[in-house]
């Protein structure tokens, strides 16, 4: 299991160049920086089409492909190539969008997990296809307004619940699976450093709020991310060799209403809709707590 890294233990050295071309307050840019900080040297990164190229100023060899479903195949290829030349010490890491992970990229992801490829897949989750204007993805929260699930006379936002890909990966038997959030950098850094030391398929899914797509002031990126964790909308947990552990376990969750209402994409929600989200969050949390410290299957 991972150990949170206190901020004062961090070295000053950066492995990413300052300033990028992402929007002000981009959560993905924070993920990118934390990944570079945790992994330091000795990794290559894979990139597919997404907002990532705007903020991945990471100083590491990189391979980019335009096809955003291709991350599984791309990372497999790099990893196998490195093995062939005897450089299995080099970590193969990809920062991949939620669309490229839970939707079109899922086939390659699931297959790579099945083969237990020696790769570290970091999904930065902004809950839509933001690079192309904010279309909904399988990771979009229920009822959220996106450009393809707008609010209108006959439409109340996204109709479906989000897919739980971290648990799917855990059920496939991946050696290490974790969720994380940009608001909890100590936890995320600890998970990345832990994952770096493991061989085989590793998956870290990071909640990365997007001011542009979610409709809130850029200054509130961390507030929104924190609110999602504190309300149970985005629980922090990890699954190591089939054992689940909750990393953030408050005595009581905050109601989901507050963090939902901070975001333009949920502004239309009525009490009934908020109640439904609250009920689902409560159920999922209860099940997670019941599994805490034990085997997931």
């Amino acid at each position: 299991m991972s150990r949170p890294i206190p901020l004062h233990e961090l070295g000053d050295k950066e492995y990413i160049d300052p300033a990028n071309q992402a929007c002000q307050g981009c959560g993905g840019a924070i993920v990118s920086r934390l990944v570079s900080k945790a992994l330091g040297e000795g990794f290559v990164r894979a990139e597919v089409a997404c907002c990532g190229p705007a903020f991945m100023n990471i100083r590491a060899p990189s391979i980019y492909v335009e096809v955003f479903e291709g991350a599984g195949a791309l990372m497999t290829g790099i990893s196998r190539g490195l093995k062939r030349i005897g450089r299995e010490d080099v970590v193969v890491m990809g920062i991949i969008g939620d669309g490229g992970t839970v939707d079109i990229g899922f086939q390659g992801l699931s297959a790579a997990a099945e083969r237990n490829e020696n790769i570290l897949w970091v999904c930065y989750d902004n809950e839509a296809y933001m690079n192309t204007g904010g279309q909904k993805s399988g990771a979009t929260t229920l009822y959220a307004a996106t450009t393809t699930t707008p609010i209108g006379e006959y439409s109340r936002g996204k109709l479906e619940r989000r897919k739980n890909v971290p648990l799917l990966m855990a059920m496939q038997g991946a050696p290490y699976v974790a969720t994380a959030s940009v608001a909890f950098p100590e936890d995320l850094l600890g998970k990345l450093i832990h994952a770096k030391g493991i061989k085989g398929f590793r998956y870290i899914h990071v909640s990365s709020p997007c001011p542009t797509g979610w409709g809130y002031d850029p200054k509130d990126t961390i507030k929104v991310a924190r609110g999602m964790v504190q309300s149970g909308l985005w629980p922090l947990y990890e699954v190591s060799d089939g054992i689940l552990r909750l990393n953030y376990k408050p005595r009581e969750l905050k109601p989901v209403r507050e963090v939902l209402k901070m975001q333009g994409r949920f502004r239309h929600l009525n009490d009934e809709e908020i109640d439904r989200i609250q009920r689902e969050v409560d159920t999922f949390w209860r099940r997670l707590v019941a599994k805490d410290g034990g085997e997931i299957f």
Partner: protein
Amino acid sequence: MIEVRFHGRGGQGAVTAVRILASALYLEGKYTQAIPMYGTERRGAPVVAFLRIGESRINERDLVHNPDIVVVLDPLLSRTVPVTEGLKEGGLIVMNFPKPGTEAGIGGRFMLATVDATGIALEALGRPITNTAMLGAFAKASGLVSLESLEKTLLEHWPGRLGEMNLRALRTAYERVTPPVDVSGIQAQEKRPREEIFSKDVSSWRIFKPQLDEDRCVGCRRCYIYCPEVAISMIQGKARVDYSSCKGCGICGEECPTGAISMVQEAL
């Protein structure tokens, strides 16, 4: 035919402004084209949009290269983007700038009208979204469209409270915009070389900047770890901002537990 180019930043509503203006002109019997420039329109990043106004059917389908009028939605944009490029001699610039046109750093055989659209937007909307204020300024400075048509289109676009707030921005800017001044005698401010535009310096993206009170900084590293631009470093236990890398998102100010960072409006 009259051609207009709008310069702004993602989030300031340049594309919406062009669409509203085209609709308002259509109401007045004009032929119009509103052209958003396709690209990654990230919040804060420079964007352009175009408008054509004709008395008869417009057959052109390309982008506008030699505009008659340029509208600049952001006061700092002209430091890195060549906003007068291709502007016809004697052309009009309507710019969001809180001081007289002769102090905007723009020179050449042009006329320049200025208005403090950021100030007006903050007053009327509470947010620095300057597009509707600039439409008011455009109407007055160019005389090409009536305030009434703009008001009508605007309320159709945003019915309700949002419309009322934008209406206030529109009218205030219409009243406050300066008459166009001749800037042919002004030395144009030097543009930074082009490669610099695409590299590190993002200081012109800011509207607010973080100001640090060193005495209150306890060196907790929160701001340092949350800054999306890696613009903050820790020097001898205190936070320090590298302003050329800071986009002014405000996260550091929001997250500092001791209130050592306040966001202040960028001085011009």
